[in-house]
């Protein structure tokens, strides 16, 4: 990788608006400053650049305001949950046909998919209406079946409402962009994983961990929104694991994993809340 490319990668630590306004100029200055110097100086410059970039990101996050940060985190949580529910249903259908797709069937997956597509593009409100109406109808129609099988718990419904209601009441402020549908490729890949593994808690738990958690941890120092979203999804998955354990009896993998996930949720939420407060203190909106 040449010097210019390395600097461009380091510049990505800055928020997009800063990169657009002064990114090229910073690149030119840094290339001039390090043109005749050693690699050690370049390394020092890059470390400082990334540090300043992350600090600029934290400042721009703080300007958003604490309420907006939390609302955004819940909206991201709603989208992650929708994605997870879609890939599980589609995967179950592909693996086992209509009966494996659950009492809601494929029309439920279709409605969730429509909600997910709209939310990904940027229409959070319409996406949330799709998701909430889907769960209202499915829960209403199949309540007895759910209650008997233990496949859904009240806290699960609360988490769904906690995530989808902010999408309806306080949607994210972003311009619609059809390119975000590229995330569907990731969701389709997760569906394929589910198909290959033929269900189970580990399959439900691992894909979001592999895809979202590294991003959430990387962003946590400067932006706790994805961490808030991940903690809610983890709570949902943990409760789903609990329901599965109640239904099928205790298993060696299920119980420790469920306990781990349910313990991680309040921990991540506490860290995210502390980080939100600390970011807010450095530059109150």
């Amino acid at each position: 990788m040449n010097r210019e490319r390395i600097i461009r990668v380091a510049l990505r630590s800055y928020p997009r608006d800063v990169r657009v306004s002064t990114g090229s100029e910073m690149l030119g200055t840094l290339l001039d400053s390090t043109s005749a110097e050693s690699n050690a100086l370049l390394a020092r410059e890059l470390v400082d650049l990334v540090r300043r970039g992350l600090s600029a990101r934290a400042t721009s996050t703080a300007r958003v305001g604490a309420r907006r940060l939390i609302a955004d985190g819940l909206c991201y949580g709603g989208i992650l949950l929708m994605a997870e529910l879609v890939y599980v249903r589609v995967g179950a259908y592909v693996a086992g046909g209509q009966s494996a797709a659950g009492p809601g069937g494929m029309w439920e997956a279709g409605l969730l998919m429509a909600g997910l597509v709209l939310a990904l593009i940027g229409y959070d409100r319409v996406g949330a209406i799709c998701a909430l109406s889907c769960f209202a109808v499915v829960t209403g129609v199949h309540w007895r079946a759910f209650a008997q099988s233990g496949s859904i718990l009240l806290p699960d419904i609360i988490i769904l409402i906690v995530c989808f209601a902010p999408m309806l009441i306080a949607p994210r402020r972003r311009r619609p962009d059809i390119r975000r549908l590229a995330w569907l490729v990731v969701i389709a890949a997760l569906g394929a994983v589910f198909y290959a593994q033929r269900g189970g808690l580990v399959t439900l738990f691992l894909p979001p961990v592999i895809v979202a958690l590294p991003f959430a941890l990387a962003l946590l120092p400067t932006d706790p929104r994805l961490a808030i979203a991940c903690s809610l999804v983890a709570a949902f998955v943990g409760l789903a694991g609990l329901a599965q354990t109640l239904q099928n009896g205790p298993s060696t993998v299920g119980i420790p994993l469920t306990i781990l996930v349910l313990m991680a949720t309040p921990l991540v939420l506490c860290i995210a809340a502390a980080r939100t407060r600390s970011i807010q203190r450095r530059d109150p909106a």
Partner: protein
Amino acid sequence: MEFRTPSYFALAALIDGPLHGYGIVRRAGELSGGAVHLSTGTLYALLERAIKEGLVVAGEPYVQGGRERRDYRLTADGRGALEAESMRLSEAARTVATRLRATSKPVVA
């Protein structure tokens, strides 16, 4: 207004006229006798703050030698802040030097 050393020399670099980013880095190094090396991240962070406080204005971007540049110019407020800071520093230096001279003891061989 008190300045940290890098900010002080970065603004001082603009006393003789507008300079682009790398020009400021070089001039600040010269003025400080090599004591201050402004890294690019630090330079643009302090320029952003100085622009927000009205001490510096940024010109329009242009391309020179295949690299995008923008000249930065000290405002009247920036010049005033630098004058006040240099007065404060020289006053502080004078006070300390006077005390050192007054309390110095002859060196015994």
